[in-house]
């Protein structure tokens, strides 16, 4: 036998042995579920046993509910650590992963411990309009529920989202457009919120039609984490529009200028974090902290807004009441010089005391 042939046989033998040693030929290959399984405490077997199509549908529902949750002031990720049990269903796994993606701190519990204990359910019903599935997500006393209906391989909302345990909120962005991306042109569904007792939230109720330009191939549909990030941004933008109280009633106690590495980073770095900690130590209950980032030159200020939100969340993370921290709107100014993306960018934090 010639040299090359012998080497090839040698190679084949080694590869065969290594496969046997590794057991790769003897065990069934488990589907990779890491992209949607919880980062911690996943039940991968449950997910592996669920079809990719079903996972896609359930993920849409989980994203829809969690995207609404992050916009509820008392349940936003910056202020709430949630208690979750190890998920035992595909939907549970996807809810937990969505909560992680939304930025919630999660505590594992083995019962219903905790003020923000998470529960969820998926119920099936046959109604006069056909079969529907009723999904509920609860965090402590807050509950969000909505009915969904299947259409072919896809799933669409079949009711308004019902809110309970909170004051009516009229500006939750449900991000229902994620359902339109599935296809089924001409399908219509209802979008909006209502309170559990039937009261209106003040939000618009709309009928959404799936239009010809809505469907997208799977690989181009909105990623769950992007939808959740968008929901958080929506909340922050809304929060910044609450306005700032009359500052004549306050006296300025101190001001920090945090310097971030560049115009797009959300990393504060050790020194900035230390400065925030120092500031927070001096903030009293009735005090006000105003965050302002204003470095974009295009008038949209998106990068600066994201940095302001990041700083606001940092202040809240150190224990300042979320209501006491405001993001100051940035008025566009043509005289402000244009900053390149890689230059150090300032975010201003001003501490006010009432009286």
């Amino acid at each position: 036998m010639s040299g090359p042939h012998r080497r090839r046989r040698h190679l084949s033998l080694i590869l065969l042995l290594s496969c046997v040693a590794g057991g790769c030929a003897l065990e069934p290959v488990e589907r990779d579920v890491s992209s949607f399984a919880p980062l911690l405490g996943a039940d991968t077997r449950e997910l592996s046993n669920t079809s990719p199509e079903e996972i896609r549908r359930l993920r849409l529902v989980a994203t829809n509910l969690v995207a609404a949750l992050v916009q509820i002031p008392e349940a936003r990720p910056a202020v709430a650590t949630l208690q979750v049990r190890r998920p035992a269903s595909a939907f549970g796994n996807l809810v937990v992963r969505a909560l992680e993606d939304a930025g919630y701190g999660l505590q594992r519990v083995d019962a219903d411990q905790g003020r923000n204990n998470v529960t969820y359910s998926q119920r099936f019903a046959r109604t006069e309009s056909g079969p529907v599935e009723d999904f509920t997500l609860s965090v402590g006393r807050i509950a969000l529920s909505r009915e969904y209906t299947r259409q072919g391989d896809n799933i669409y909302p079949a009711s308004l989202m019902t809110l309970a345990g909170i004051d009516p909120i009229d500006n939750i962005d449900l991000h229902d457009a994620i359902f339109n991306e599935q296809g089924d042109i001409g399908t219509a569904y209802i979008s909006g919120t209502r309170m559990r007792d039937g009261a209106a939230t003040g939000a618009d109720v709309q009928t959404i039609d799936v239009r010809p330009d809505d469907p997208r191939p799977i690989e181009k549909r909105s990623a769950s984490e992007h939808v959740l990030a968008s929901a958080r941004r929506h909340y922050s933008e809304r929060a910044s529009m609450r306005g700032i109280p009359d500052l004549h009633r306050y006296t300025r106690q101190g001001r920090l200028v945090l310097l971030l590495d560049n115009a797009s980073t959300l990393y504060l770095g050790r020194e900035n974090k230390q400065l925030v900690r120092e500031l927070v130590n001096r903030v009293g209950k009735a005090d006000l902290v105003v965050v302002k980032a204003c470095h974009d030159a295009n008038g949209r200020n998106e990068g600066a807004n994201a940095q302001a939100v990041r700083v606001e969340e940092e202040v809240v993370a150190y224990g300042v009441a979320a209501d006491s921290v405001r993001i100051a709107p940035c008025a566009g100014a043509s005289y402000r010089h244009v900053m390149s993306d890689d230059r150090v960018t300032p975010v201003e934090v001003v501490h006010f005391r009432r009286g």
Partner: protein
Amino acid sequence: MQSSHRSYSRRFPDRRRPLFGYGRPVFMQEVRLTMSSGFTRTGGVNASSRPARKNRIQPCALTLGAALLSLSSGCTMLKDTSGDALAPGATLDRIVSDDIAVILEQILEPRSTTVQINRDRADSFTEKLAARLTDQGFGIQRVAADQGAHYVEHQRDIVLPTSGGARVTERLTIGTIETQREFTITRNGTVRSAGPLRIAGVRISLDADMLSKPPLQIADPTHRVIEYVNDPAVEPAGEPVREPSFAPSFKPVGEPAGPLERIVTPAVVERVAFDNREGIDLQSLIGSQGIPLSEADATTEVNNLFYGTSAFESELDGLERVERQIIVFPNDSMQLGKANKRLVARLARGSIQQDDRISLVGCSTGYTSLSIGNEGLAIGRAQRVIEELTDHDIPRQQIFDEGCWAPVSAGEDFPGRGVVIDIWRHPA
């Protein structure tokens, strides 16, 4: 012992350097890569660094590849009885994560504490740490940046001595708590202590008996104690050149509690100086707001008196100056020195009264060889004096600081390298 000192860690930008001061933390993902490259290369590097003998190396490489394939495919035959993979990194991961969990449990209440871990880090250490802390009852928040009060940073530096084995330095930061420990890993994969656990950022005494459990082998009984450190790397003998970077939150156990935190670190001073030098327009940031915050906001962060008048004139209106002291710094230095410290202490204890205002002008004029420039020096010197005053319980809000910097002399108006302290008081 000769050592190759190949460090496989990558470096953070300045902003995220560790408080211990010698090196910078590395993203955990990078640490994982470091571990795998560090430990698998101990044999592999030697083998492949020999003179090339193609015919023999090819089958060797194939065999090595096959072995790696077996490991990566989850082969249980090549695992030890404790369940750890053969790579000693797994044992080290377990030791470090166990110890930090024990430490945190003593300092923080798990049920009311959430620890932030970067979501992009999915290496084995991160996962072990997250799982361990979860078991302890801590909340885990996966974050996209460095959010939160208990954000985790980890750095693993590996040195591979030519004599074999490895020396590993583990640094772990969780919020203000920092730990560091050195380990040696023997050729047979045993992990041994190479020093005691060093910890900063805590103000309680920790129970050392709960640490350093097997599989860690304690090489020396002195390694069983916990060393409470104050960052020797940045505080050399004699007068400190700059503040210990984590003095803010740490006092060795038994020492009287001082102020918990300082406002400005040297790095911040440098950045402010950099900011001024590079021309970021803080004035525009302040003045462009649709809703003006307050009149006081219409000042720059640090007013340069070389070019104008004091921004605090209105604040000092009606007050009379009762004392002036000038603190002179060494050339190109922010070191206060013992004599100046005594001077500040005397002012704080003897001269300054409760309702006084302290006007403070940090100066640096003329040539400087420092990269931070006159601005950095002026601001840094002022901050240094502010820190000293606040250390003596002078409220920060009593102090109005400004600067005076220029590449040329300010004549007799301001000192070239000093801080002017004026004490202002309501007339009796």
